[in-house]
């Protein structure tokens, strides 16, 4: 197992008077791809910013590979946070930025960067400020993957990328991770797309941790039931349904809180049981009526 592990205990972070993270605690296992999920304003970017020492914490403990990342030369050299399209010089050619990073990032792979540039059809002589948003995001992806840092934090890096580019990103990330295992934290709203990559999940909501779990355990906290609509309705009667879909006479319902006799009941009723989609669980867990303050 390789990569930096992360321990966060009672972390509080503020922007002036606004509390972005309120005493949150979670662990990120080394060498694992972890999804950091949460609605807008839940504190995902703040959490990643503290881990990468972009932002000071107000209180609490943050340990990356066992050490405080703030002004820690070794930990920072091994940590890469890419926010949206990356923090790169906007008026420099892409090739100059790659050279800049190759000189500074101990594990930067120039060949991989070149291959990814080709894959995303990025012109090395172009500049970030002349690229479309999708292309800028693709360059952020190049930087994030090619830096090959033991802790890679990718915060909404897909923004603006079209579907083929996003899938190329997921494939490239997974392929390189399999070859060079390291800790990767992915923050994204496109949970359905990244779900297959995630081994662990940290869910934040309104600056607090909602759940920390491995993805399989989280998925097993719910199930889908598919079959004739009236049989499905009977099966889920009185239970917590977080999503429903209908196609003609066929229906699918997503439940949370599976029971021991679910398999037997489903067999008897001729229904199919399946795993729950993280996206549905996420929507269920974070669904809430906004407070008057948020509504304003």
């Amino acid at each position, binding site marked *: 197992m390789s990569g930096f592990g992360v321990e966060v205990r009672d972390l509080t972070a503020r922007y002036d008077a606004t509390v972005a993270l309120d005493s949150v605690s979670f662990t990120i296992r080394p060498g694992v791809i972890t999804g950091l999920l949460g609605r807008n304003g839940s504190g995902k970017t703040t959490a990643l910013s503290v881990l990468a020492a972009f932002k000071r914490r107000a209180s609490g403990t943050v340990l990356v590979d066992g050490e405080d990342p703030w*002004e820690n030369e*070794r930990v920072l050299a091994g940590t890469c946070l890419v926010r949206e399209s990356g923090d790169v010089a906007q008026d420099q050619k892409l090739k100059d930025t790659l050279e800049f*990073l190759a000189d500074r990032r101990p594990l930067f792979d120039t060949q991989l960067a070149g291959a990814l540039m080709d894959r995303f059809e990025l012109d090395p002589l172009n500049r970030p400020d002349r690229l479309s948003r999708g292309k800028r995001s693709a360059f952020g992806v190049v930087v994030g993957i090619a830096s090959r840092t033991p802790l890679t934090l990718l915060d909404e890096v897909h923004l603006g990328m079209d579907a083929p580019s996003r899938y190329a990103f997921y494939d490239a990330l997974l392929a390189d991770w399999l070859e060079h295992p390291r800790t990767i934290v992915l923050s994204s709203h496109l949970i359905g797309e990244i779900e297959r990559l995630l081994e662990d999940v940290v869910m934040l909501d309104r600056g607090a941790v909602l759940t920390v779990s491995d993805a399989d355990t989280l998925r097993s906290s719910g199930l889908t039931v598919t079959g004739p609509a009236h049989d499905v309705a009977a099966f889920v009667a009185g239970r917590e349904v977080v999503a429903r879909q209908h196609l003609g006479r066929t229906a699918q319902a997503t439940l949370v809180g599976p029971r021991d006799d679910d398999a037997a009941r489903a067999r008897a009723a001729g229904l199919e049981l399946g795993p729950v989609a993280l996206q549905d669980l996420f929507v269920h867990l974070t669904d809430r009526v906004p407070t008057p303050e948020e509504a304003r």
Partner: protein
Amino acid sequence: MTVDVARAPRVSSVRATAQWLLMMHLYLAMWAWAMAIVVVTLAIVVINTVGEVQNSVLSFARQGAIWFPFSVFIAITAAYLPVHIAAGLTRRSLARGSILAAIGTGIAYGLVYNGLLLVERAVFGAMGWEWRVLEGMSPDTADPLAIATSTTLTFVVAYLCGLLVGITYMRAGGWWGTLALPLTVGPILVVSVLFAYESGPLETSAWFGSDQASPIAAAASLLIIAVQAFAFDRLTRGVDVPRRTT
């Protein structure tokens, strides 16, 4: 996984930062001085055509050499911080690299400015024109060493002021950044006044004596540079990378 045993960065982060910033400023300096040479040459030709050349024209570029890089240092401090931290480098290396770049840029501007003054002086001599410095805050001296010392130290102080203005706005925001301007920009005026001797508003030659005014001004400038460097280092080490607004 330990990064430090995997592969060390190719160059020290302080050196890399200083080099990168210095190259950026020298690139801009090349353009600035190229334009200054054209403008000064044209001005001398025009003055010679319509009147009599009596004063150094290039010496008026001193203010430009103070304020142009000063403003660039403000902008680059804000723009480069996220790039530096995102590249996995510490604020410590950013502070030290920036200070070295400011000192290097000041020396470079001092060398170019004083080199051009010598060229201008030689041209004036060849043409039979009188050469003297009449720019408002410059001492009325013909000693090249005194001019080189005063201008180079003033440039270094000014560029460190640019760093301080930029980092203060980033740390403290608009109101406090503006209120702190007397502290962050003030050193330029202090050093200019000290080096102006009898030409300035305080007539430091009368205070310290004509023999002592120059060494005292130089020593005070070096002290100010040290304080500025310390303040910039402290302010930089605690700065947050600004939030993305895109």
